[in-house]
């Protein structure tokens, strides 16, 4: 608008007006900035109070030994981190978390891919099945854990049905050999809904012409799946891989409800270990060091995802 006004100025006048206009623009940009800040401030203040300051405080606490109610007592530098890797409990919990990731992530993606292919069929009533396949989105971690707790129950649980097909005396949560697998099954079931929904949405963005021209070339269903569907989903798979790994690293509820980390520490995953260290043992510094480790795992994965997806965009 400033430009429009100045067009009508005589040449000599324009030079004089130049200064005034510039400061007008500056004034406007300052006004815009403060107006924008006003709109951003509610979210910004909350972020500062509950995300940014706490993140720095996590780093700070991790460099201290605290008293049992969390007040900083003694600066120890990196000692908490060094102690982490000398503590068998933490190494165990890191190991169990990695195994948990290996158990859950590929299983979740494979099952969800199967369900998404089924949900992509062009049939009457398919939207009902899509809803069923994604139902675990609506189920909370707590209720799913309780449901599975009693599926694993020795008398009312699924063991009787399994015995009909020749599988006897599954130990489920009772034995340290099967407990993590049993928890994983719950986590997979909980995560399938989200994965299926995202895969289905991605499948629907694949251009129909690709399949049509493949059909003209005489490709059968399997060929189309392997040579069109799977490659077209590659960035979605990567996205899910990151989302699922992060979800696995953050798993807490099923552990708290089903196993309390046992038997024999076999299900003592990272977040549960953090919770126990600060909430019960009052070792805030030690727990904060663990949570910072979690932060870096998440950061690296997110950066990897950005790098990969950005490159993917270029190729397309």
């Amino acid at each position, binding site marked *: 608008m400033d430009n429009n006004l100045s067009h009508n100025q005589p040449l000599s006048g324009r030079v004089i007006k130049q200064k005034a206009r510039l400061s007008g623009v500056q004034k406007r*940009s300052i006004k815009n900035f403060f107006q924008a800040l006003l709109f*951003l401030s509610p979210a910004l203040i*909350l972020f500062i109070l509950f995300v940014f300051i706490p993140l720095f405080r*996590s780093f700070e606490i991790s460099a201290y030994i605290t008293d049992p109610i969390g007040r900083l007592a003694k600066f120890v530098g990196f000692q908490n981190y060094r102690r982490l890797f000398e503590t068998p409990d933490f190494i165990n919990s890191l190991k169990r978390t990695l195994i948990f990731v290996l158990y859950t992530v590929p299983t979740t993606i494979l099952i969800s891919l199967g369900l998404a292919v089924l949900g992509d069929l062009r049939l009457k009533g398919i939207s009902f*099945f899509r809803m069923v396949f994604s139902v675990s989105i609506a189920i909370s971690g707590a209720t799913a854990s309780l449901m599975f707790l009693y599926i694993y129950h020795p008398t009312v649980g699924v063991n009787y049905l399994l015995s009909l097909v020749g599988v006897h005396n599954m130990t489920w949560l009772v034995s340290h050999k099967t407990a993590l697998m049993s928890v994983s099954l719950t986590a997979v079931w909980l995560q399938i809904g989200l994965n299926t*929904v995202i895969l289905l949405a991605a499948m629907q963005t694949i251009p129909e012409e690709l399949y049509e021209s493949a059909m003209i070339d005489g490709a059968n269903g399997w060929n189309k799946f392997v040579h069109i569907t799977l490659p077209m989903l590659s960035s979605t798979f990567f996205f899910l891989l990151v989302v699922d790994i992060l979800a696995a690293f953050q798993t*807490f509820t099923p552990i708290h409800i089903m196993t309390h980390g046992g038997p024999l520490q076999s299900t003592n995953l990272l977040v549960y270990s953090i919770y126990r260290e600060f909430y019960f043992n009052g070792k805030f510094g030690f727990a904060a060091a663990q*949570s910072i480790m979690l932060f870096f795992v998440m950061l690296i994965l997110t950066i990897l995802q950005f790098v990969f997806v950005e490159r993917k965009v270029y190729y397309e």
Partner: protein
Amino acid sequence: MKKMDFDRHLLSKLGQYLILIIAAIIILFPIWSAFNISMMSDTEMGAYPPIQFPTGIRLENVKRALTQAPLGRYLFNSVVQSTLVMLGQLITSSLAAYAFAFIDFKWRNIFFLLFLSTMMIPWEATIIPNYLFVQKLGWTDTFQGLAVPFMATGFGTFLLRQFFLKIPHELKDAATIDGCSHSRFLLTIVLPLARPALGTLAVYSFLQTYNQYLWPLLVTNNPSMRTVQIGIALLQDEERLMINIIMAGVIFIQIPTLTLFVVSNRQLIRGLTAGAVKG
């Protein structure tokens, strides 16, 4: 010849339905089994082989669950917490998204990156300082302690901004010429147009908050302030409680969110796929 083709077609369709039904049964099994147990009488609980189909509708198990634990009160707490978080996110996200979409200001990209970066910081990495902070504020066992930390999200801001950007800029220019302020333009033009996106954020944030576990576990000690997820998990610790009553409670507290899931399926799925699928 034509008839045979038709038969084969029908057969493959039937086969597809059969596979779909089997898959649906397997996925629904955990919910079915919880429902089945919740309908058992106490004597049926001891039967061997275990009963696989309900022999009747037994609502008294829900009633017993409700007398064993104040599930109604817990449900109320969860609904209040989730509603507060939902309203908070709608307000903070639409304000911030408005600035990002309609105001041209210095360092806009830097601020936007700052907002996005909050999505990469796992809640668990900040949970200890947050727990200490909320304690220091005296917010333990309060609704503000349960809700305020979650009232702003990078995700919500991002979701609404994407939608706001689709609103034609001419509308904004015309409004400016008419002397319409930012806040009036947001209230009278942008928000009514953005109803679908607001609906998505509302459903998504409500569901997420209702299902929270670790945070309410940390900041509520008083039984009257417990949320429903913590309450249901604590039922399990009551030694004398029968499993059928616990499962009746599980079904009871799942009904609101399952209903929300069915009723607003489209909004919810739009929210879940917002960050994942391009185009």
